């Protein structure tokens, strides 16, 4: 996950001398500090465990009634006490994938431009502007989405996609579109995760030693070949980390998604159809959920979201390890 772990050579800069912070030379301070930080670290694990435990207990009534059907049913009917999670899981995963599909090329493009190609004076201001996107509250993105992005998609983007889908006989883009869809949710998410991808990948590219670039140049490589061989290739592990962190944000995003996804619990391969997501259904229905079973079903959705995030992170770590191991050979 740590992008600089494999690239410790930072051009031979000497470590600076530490200011004197220790109190006494008994070594007590060191030991105490070690215990204290360990305590903090375990506290996080403990909190995660407690959260999972609480969600597990809260979801017991639904699990008792629905059993494994909760994971396989597409029916969500609070009045009749039937709860299936499929449409929400589908909406969360597909909208996040659409977001990655759009944001990864853009994000990497921006950070390559900023670290390799842009004039020096331009780099910091542009990077700052991209990163400021991360500071906008998600409810603001949501309102922008419902009042500007969704109508724009309905009038200008979706008809083009519909025509394209019709011509290529793709089932992904079918009209008529209301502008509220999985695709619009993916677009708004892609804007929200862009700063994460850009910021981390920029750090990763900057950590690539300049000697790599100089060697490629000395061998007669063009700019493109230099970027490909001496910047992108050694950065693979770090980039995977950046993408996974962005995916984490996209999976859990609530307000912005709920404003533009249409909040309709259905599974459709058509990306222009309205859908729903796990985080949105919890945010939408929790405050006025009156039956115990309904509250419990929402808790189980929360537990499921936690499990999915955990699984994806584990897969990401495995990928990072695999890639890192391969690179070291």
């Amino acid at each position, binding site marked *: 996950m740590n992008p600089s772990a494999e690239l410790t050579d930072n051009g031979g800069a000497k470590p600076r001398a530490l200011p004197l912070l220790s109190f006494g030379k008994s070594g007590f301070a060191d030991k105490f500090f070690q215990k204290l930080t360990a305590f903090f670290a375990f506290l996080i694990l403990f909190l995660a465990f407690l959260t999972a435990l609480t969600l597990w207990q809260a979801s017991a009534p639904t699990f008792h009634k629905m059993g494994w059907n909760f994971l396989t049913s597409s*029916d*969500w*009917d*609070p*009045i*009749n006490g039937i709860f299936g999670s499929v449409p929400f899981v589908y909406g969360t995963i597909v909208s996040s994938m659409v977001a990655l599909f759009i944001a990864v090329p853009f994000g990497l493009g921006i950070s390559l431009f900023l670290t390799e190609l842009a004039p020096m004076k331009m780099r910091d201001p542009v990077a700052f502007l991209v990163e400021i996107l991360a500071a906008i509250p998600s409810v603001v993105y949501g*309102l922008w989405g*419902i*009042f500007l992005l*969704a*109508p724009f998609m*309905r009038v200008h983007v979706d008809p083009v996609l519909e025509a394209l889908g019709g011509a290529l006989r793709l089932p992904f883009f079918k009209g*008529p579109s*209301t*502008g*509220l869809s999985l695709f619009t949710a993916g677009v708004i998410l892609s804007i929200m995760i862009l700063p994460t991808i850009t910021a981390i990948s920029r750090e990763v590219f900057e950590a690539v030693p300049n000697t790599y670039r100089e060697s490629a140049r000395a061998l007669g490589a063009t700019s493109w070949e230099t970027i490909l061989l001496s910047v992108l290739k050694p950065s693979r592990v770090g980039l995977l980390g950046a993408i996974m962190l962005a995916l984490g944000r996209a999976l859990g995003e609530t307000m912005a998604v*709920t*404003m533009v996804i*249409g*909040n*309709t619990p259905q599974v459709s391969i058509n990306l222009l159809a*309205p859908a*729903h997501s796990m985080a*949105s259904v919890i*945010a*939408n*229905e*929790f*405050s*006025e*959920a*009156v039956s115990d079973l*309904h*509250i419990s079903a929402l808790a189980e959705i929360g537990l499921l979201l936690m499990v999915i995030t955990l699984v994806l992170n584990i897969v990401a770590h495995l990928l990072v390890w695999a890639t890192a191991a391969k690179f070291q050979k």
Partner: protein
Amino acid sequence: MKSFKKIMTGALVVAAFAGTGLVNADSVSLNGAGATFPYPIYSKWFYEYNKATGTAINYQSIGSGGGIQQLTNGTVDFGASDAPMTDDQMAKIKTGVLHFPTVAGAVAVAFNVPGVDKLKLDGQTLAGIYLGTITKWNDPAIAALNDGVSLPDLNITVAHRSDGSGTSNIFTNYLTKVSTKWAATAGFGTSVKWPVGVGGKGNEGVAGLISQIPGTIGYVELAYAIKNKISYASIKNRDGNFVEPTLESTTACADGALRRMPKDFRMMITNAAGENAYPICGFTWLLINKSYADPAKGKAITDFLKWYLDSGETMASDLYYAPLPASLVEKVKAQIDEVKY
């Protein structure tokens, strides 16, 4: 210097204790939680009541479900809900619980059809639209109700609330009463399984969908529709008249339901009788324990209940809530005696 500091600290501590002593001597504070729909009028009431009597009432608008849960757990002195509690829920409250209707609200059916500013609908047609059986604005069923209006050949986009809400509860309750098919497919509640349409979060979410997508129909709280100047349809009531939602027609709706009002005031009043009654309306309730262990709290609660029924109701219409009809106010007052402390 040191001794001066000590003296000052001592004086401050004494002053602080004296201060709290003074406050505790003659005022009680009450805690409540629940419905978000009446929050503006409740916060005005609690503010005015505090000014008049010194009793502080804290209210968290966390939603009806949360209010009922906190009242059940005994963590608040009173709850508030947009839907009456079920018998099962009431059985869980050991002290017993009373429903006090506070104000009535209406649900407006708003629309965005290019070239149309006035629209008439009846229950059957509205249910047909929300069931997905009526899909075009120039459908014969809609045209029959709107003589002389040129309705376009445009797809209807149905918008509904995606968050659980008392507004959805009132709206779906109305559809359940006027359409057996709706009753069989979806039923009524704060969150239902909508046969068609897209969901918007909150009144602003639904209003956003209506204003952004031509051909959209949706429902919002009347107060929200008035404040934001959204055009809404008149609905055919039980007596056969087309009535626009207004504060007066909402009070008329509450009035029309009086004859069938049960003793505990737990009633959905949609589709009430009455010449001028707007049919999609409902109460919101305060949930009060039947007995309070702390006499000071019990007295404070009953005093407040008397106050809102006497002085509070007149403040409602400024905030676009319909006051209770006078005849109902008398009946509700009689229930205050059932609160024991």
